[in-house]
């Protein structure tokens, strides 16, 4: 039982990170009908921006973990928001009318650029970097289950962030504009909505979520490396598709489902745990064959 609790906790942490990344994919698809394939590397950029802020502040003699944590998170959010907006403004919007494949290719290349820039310009960037533990490391041992405060805090923050995003989209004027653009760009424009601004803001929001996923990853594993966004991006994308691309709830469900599949793959299957990704992605393929529009399909609910 305690063991089950531990697995559930591990899975929930993974699921939260995947969900945060997946929500970004889904937001971008919602407003522009495109896949932003550099999104995973934006996650890494966020984590490394946070790391830079940490290094700068500790060099200035700041010691308080609370201040540092705030600075790390803000730096990560700011950096990814800028990257996200730049990608939208100079890569995605100019070729909006071109075939989807072009956007896919351009953002894929952009991801490589971001990734390699981290590797080349971050000091000793090829190596895994140590991410500071800024949250309390204590916890309770309940049998085989070790409940840590930092995990609880991270999960709660993740949930709050997703809830806030949900409220932003359903309850505010900005959210209304985003939903209007997602529904029908032309009509939204004629209603006087500043299309470009809405797109840029959406990219900023999605990228900030990615920043939090990056910082969460760093705080959880205490280690980040330049290629961390690669698999995270693929999994986040798979989760978004699995849930139903363009649907916020779908992305969350997809993220947690994928984490559950990985955990089951590592724990319950008789063969070596090295096959857990094979298992998880295999199940995704099967699910996609059964429900091509995702678990919560577009037809069932409105986009974004």
């Amino acid at each position, binding site marked *: 039982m305690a*063991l089950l609790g*531990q*697995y559930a906790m*591990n899975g929930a*942490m*993974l699921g939260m990170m995947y969900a945060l990344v997946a929500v970004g994919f889904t937001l971008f698809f919602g407003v522009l009908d495109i896949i932003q394939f550099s999104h995973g590397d934006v996650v890494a950029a966020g984590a490394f921006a946070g790391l830079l802020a940490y290094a700068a502040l500790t060099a200035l003699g700041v010691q308080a973990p609370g201040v540092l944590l705030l600075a790390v998170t803000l730096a990560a959010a700011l950096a990814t928001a800028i990257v996200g907006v730049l990608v939208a403004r100079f890569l995605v919007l100019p070729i909006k009318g071109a075939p989807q494949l072009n956007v896919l290719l351009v953002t894929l290349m952009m991801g490589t650029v971001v990734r390699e820039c981290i590797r080349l310009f971050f000091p000793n960037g*090829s*190596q*895994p*970097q*140590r991410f500071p533990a800024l949250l309390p490391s204590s*916890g309770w*041992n309940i049998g*085989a289950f*070790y409940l*840590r405060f930092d995990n609880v805090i991270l999960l709660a923050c993740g949930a709050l962030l997703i809830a806030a995003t949900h409220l932003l989209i359903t309850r505010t004027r900005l959210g209304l504009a985003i939903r209007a653009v997602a529904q029908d760009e032309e009509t939204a424009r004629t209603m006087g909505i500043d299309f470009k601004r809405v797109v840029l803001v959406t990219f900023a929001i999605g990228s900030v979520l990615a920043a939090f996923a990056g910082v969460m990853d760093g705080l*959880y*594993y*205490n*280690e980040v*490396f330049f*290629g*961390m966004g690669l*698999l995270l991006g693929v999994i986040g994308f798979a989760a978004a598709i699995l849930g139903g691309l363009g649907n916020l709830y779908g992305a969350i469900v997809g993220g947690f489902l994928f984490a559950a599949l*990985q*955990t089951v793959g*590592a*724990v319950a299957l008789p063969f*070596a*745990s*090295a096959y*857990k*990704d094979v298992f998880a992605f295999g199940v995704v393929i099967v699910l996609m064959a059964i429900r091509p529009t995702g678990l919560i399909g577009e037809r069932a609910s409105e986009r974004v």
Partner: protein
Amino acid sequence: MRHAFIALFALMSLAANAKETVRIAFIGPLTGGNSAIGLGGRNSADLAVRLRNADAKAKYSYELVVLDDECKPDAGVQMATKAGSDRTIVGGVTNYCSVVAMAAVDTYHRFGLPAIVWGAVLPDITYKNDFKEVHRVNGTMINQNETNAKFMAEHGYRNVAIIHDTTDYGKGHDKYFTQFFTQAGGKIAGDFGVTADQQDFTAELTQIKALRPDALYFGGLTPIGVRIRAQMDKLGLNVQFDGTSGIVNDDFIKALGPIAEGALAFREGAPAEKLAHGKDFLEQYNKQGYAQPPEAYGPFAYAAAVLLMDAIEKAGPDRRKIIEQLSPAHVKDVDSIAGKITFDDHGQNTVPVITKYVVQDGKWVMWEDSEYSSGKRKLAK
């Protein structure tokens, strides 16, 4: 006409006086997660070349061609092909990563390029084939795991869980450690294969925690070793961490900080400062002002480069003759900075020196010199 002849003769005699330049290759991981070791190896091989070029008695002047195998088999084969197909390169000091060396030996063989492996520990690299081109100055993982298993058994560890990566390298470690540890009377609590770029190990570690082992053996390289050790701490799995030569480098400690303390690892060869000529090596190394330290395998890369250049001095810059010069008949009890070198029929050095290491205060310390050995500190139980 006559003047032209005289000029020509003058030119020829000048060329005879200047030393002929001979090119040798260095292949290792210069980028990616294992680049610290690779750069240390490159600097060490470079040092050997520089010292030889400064030696007036040397017949040839040497040039080191540095190639990056990225610790990836495909890149390794590309680099092996590059070195092999370039006829001006007469030999190589090659490979730290076992999977890469394993993939590249066929290429060395096909091109007839004499290669001396300076760091990879998988036994199959020298023993699977009968390639006359392939040699190795360092020991294999068989020796290292034998020492490791005996050490663990002697220190009262009876029940050990294993995590290894599923490359040939990790599988080899798994196989030999299991073999020697069960022979020594130990029990393997559980055996987990993981991919070499996996990020999350909480599921495996939770399972291991439930198995209640008294130590965790890790067969793999630094990047995932760091992750596993960090996540053990996160899950409150505080058993002894027992590693292999794959984690003996400064990056392992740098990435982990204080939780690296007490980690064990075993490696072929002895640390440079403990070697007969190690002090000279370090002194010369520091004089050159390299940006990176020689790391654990630097002395092997240096020894391999010296061995290769010695063979070239005797045989001339001809690949086939160099291979002949590196045969067991010629390489017997050769003194090197990494200890004596004696090649067997497979080009494998048969004089294994295994050093035990433990992390103490942010440094890899030889077990015998550590406070853990003297009883002042205790390993996790």
